[in-house]
């Protein structure tokens, strides 16, 4: 297994390189000039030109790319154009926020989604199934934004139970941290629960009419155990895939929720970096995302091996 991890990680290296180059090229494709934005309203063309020079933006592309890659190889991701921060510190500052949010949200999504999915599959075509399905659909089609606002109005403004916005680091206490994140986490979860539920349901339906379920029943296993132990265990590959997928979604882009709840997460960071053409920051964040996603997915792959003994890789 150790070999598998090393092997997969080794594969990640060239991929990260590809991300690096792609990110770089993509940024070049974009119209808009970071120098103009940095210079601000009313700046003269000379001023802009100067900034361009200082940032080496006036040099040929290949040269810029080369320099950047060279620095990258030395572990230097460079500095943000806008933030007066190194890319690493900018990201390091926000990652805990995104990770916290993703983790709490996942902790809500996973049990709820799985529960709904399993119940819906079991009670297939009944009213329970219909309700679970409705919840699933509401989650995806009601704009997150709307839920977020309504939730703030209800829980923060009207009831005064939860803070309306802002992040409190874990270092300032577990409860404040949790209270600050619980609302956005639920809003995010609502969006994902449906997906997980539907996926679980579908996978469960595939498993439920297989022979070994009959065997379990023949042994006198009660329905709930048949459902959870015998059937659900067999859907874990599908469920894990979806969970991994949701996790990467949560880390990478919960821009709207971060925005509504004024959370300084990486989602907003990267969008703003794109919008302000903060090249080094975008490139750096993408690399980081790439790395995290590779990690998540390697972890999922390894979990596959654990949850389904039939799976094998060479």
């Amino acid at each position, binding site marked *: 297994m150790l070999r598998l991890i090393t092997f997969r990680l080794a594969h990640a290296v060239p991929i990260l390189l590809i991300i690096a180059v792609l990110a770089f090229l993509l940024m070049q494709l*974009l*119209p*808009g*000039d*970071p120098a*103009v*934005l*940095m*210079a*601000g*309203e*009313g*700046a*003269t*063309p*000379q*001023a*802009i030109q*100067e*900034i361009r020079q*200082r940032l080496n933006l006036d040099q040929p592309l290949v040269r810029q790319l080369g320099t950047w890659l060279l620095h990258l190889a030395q572990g230097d991701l460079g500095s943000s154009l*806008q*933030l*007066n*921060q190194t890319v690493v510190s*900018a990201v390091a*500052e*926000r990652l805990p926020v995104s990770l916290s949010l993703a983790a709490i949200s996942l902790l809500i999504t996973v049990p709820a989604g799985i529960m709904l999915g399993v119940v819906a599959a079991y009670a297939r075509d009944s009213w329970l199934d219909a309700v679970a399905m409705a919840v699933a659909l509401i989650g995806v089609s009601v704009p997150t934004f709307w839920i977020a*606002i309504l939730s*703030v*109005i209800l829980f*923060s*403004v009207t009831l*005064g139970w*939860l*803070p*309306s*916005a*802002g*992040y*409190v680091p874990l270092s*300032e206490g577990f*409860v*404040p941290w949790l*209270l*600050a994140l619980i609302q956005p986490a639920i809003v995010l979860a609502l969006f994902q629960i449906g997906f997980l539920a539907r996926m679980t349901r579908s996978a469960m339906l595939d498993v439920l009419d297989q022979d070994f379920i009959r065997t379990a029943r023949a042994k006198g296993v009660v329905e709930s155990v048949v459902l959870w132990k015998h059937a659900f265990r067999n859907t874990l590959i599908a469920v894990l895939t979806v969970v991994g997928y949701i996790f990467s979604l949560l880390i990478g882009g919960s821009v709207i929720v971060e*925005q*509504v*709840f*004024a*959370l*300084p*997460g990486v989602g*907003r*960071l990267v969008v*703003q970096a794109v*919008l*302000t*053409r903060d090249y080094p920051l975008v490139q750096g964040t993408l690399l980081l995302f790439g790395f995290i996603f590779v990690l998540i997915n390697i972890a999922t792959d390894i979990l596959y091996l654990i949850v389904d003994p039939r799976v094998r890789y060479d």
Partner: protein
Amino acid sequence: PAQSQGKNAETIIYGNTAGPGTLDPFVGSSTVDLEVMHHIFEGLVGMDANYAAKPMLASKIDVAPDGKTFTFQLRKGVKFHNGKEMTAADVQASFERYRKLSPNASVLADVTEYSTPDPYTFIIKLSKTNAVFLDVLKSPVYPFVVLPAEQKDKPAREVDIIGTGPYKLAEWRKDSHLTLEKFDDYAVDTTGKPADGLVGKKEALVRNVRYRFMPEANSRIAALQTGEADIIANVPRDLVARIEGRPDLEVRRLLACQQYFIVNTQQPGTDTPEMRQAIRTAIGVDDIMAAISRPTKRSHAMTIPGGEYYNGDLNNQYYDQKNPKLAGELARKAGYKPGQKIQLMTTATYPEFRDAILVLSEQLKEAGIDSEVHVIDWATNAANMQSGGGNWNISSTQFCSNPNLGPQQWKFMVYNFPHVKNDGTLDAAYDKFYTSQDLADRKTAWNQIEKQVLDQAYMIKIADTGLIQALNKKRLPSFDDYYINRFWNVPLK
């Protein structure tokens, strides 16, 4: 948590859309930058409530009769946040750094020499007469503030945030919040002037000011309602009702900006004055004002009432013509062929720009002029407006400091955004403006400039616009509006 971020006798909490991009004063230009910087940094001169230049760190200013030499006496005992005393050397180093890296450095192009005969005297010599040099120095945008001399070689955006202002920077978490802390050794201006605009007797009455960055209007309002913020900025006009119902909250409307359509004179379709005028004729500002979710006021002028250069109804005829029929005829005369599309460029980053453009597109349609709207991100929009590239005919933007600060502040905009070329009338008027020491002459010059810009429809005025702020009256009973929010002399209950 609600408490940890919320009500606090020592901390004023201010919610605005975003945090500063940079706190390096020499490159800071956006409102969110400035409203923090002016608490931390101070310059030799600053604006008063009427936008006039007044001494700040200078105790006395002498202007030589030829308008070329400026001598500043510095206040004594002014301390930087690092405890060091400010001297002329710091001032000179700051000017030198400014010249090296500020986008606005060109205004120092005529400087021939700085000198510091003694630690409290600073002299600037210019090669040419500049009648409005002090007005240049008062600019709140890219402010000419004083940094410790050691910061001289720091690249743009990388200075240590050390000023002489009443507050110092305590904590700054990008995209989250920024906290200012009272500077205990602040040298209050004791020359006897009361607080006025950015100058005068400034005192920090609360320990901390926390700026919270909350991009969503709904969230800011919620924060104010829950007491997690004491004051918030940028309330969309159509959401004001949510606040107005509450006895403890108060809504403030501030009209300090102006919004325009910028017409690209170099782009086919709008490269003739006739066509630009046709477009202007089609525009009715009431619908636009209704559409943009900001407080607005009808006004044709490029300056604000009360300012030195305000000229009453002089150029009113170019405003709000609202005559689609005539506009259609003019367009045809100007050679416009139906089906030909005027390219409207705007951004969603600033909804008021986009909304104005959307209404414009409808009004042009009424006049028989077809158009196409391109919504792009602000980065591209701004870059295209600067460069003239990107195939746009009309875009919209808003100016805040320019109308307030006078014609010198307008110059770059009126030339550069519409990409004006070879306009002798405009050139001559500006020349006169800079060289005449006589205010009356300068006013005449400005009237000409304004007339030319509006007549040629380089820019088409939409309205004076502004912001809506809201605050908790109970907590901030005596908060004073200004076009930059200030938290000195503000007590917290």
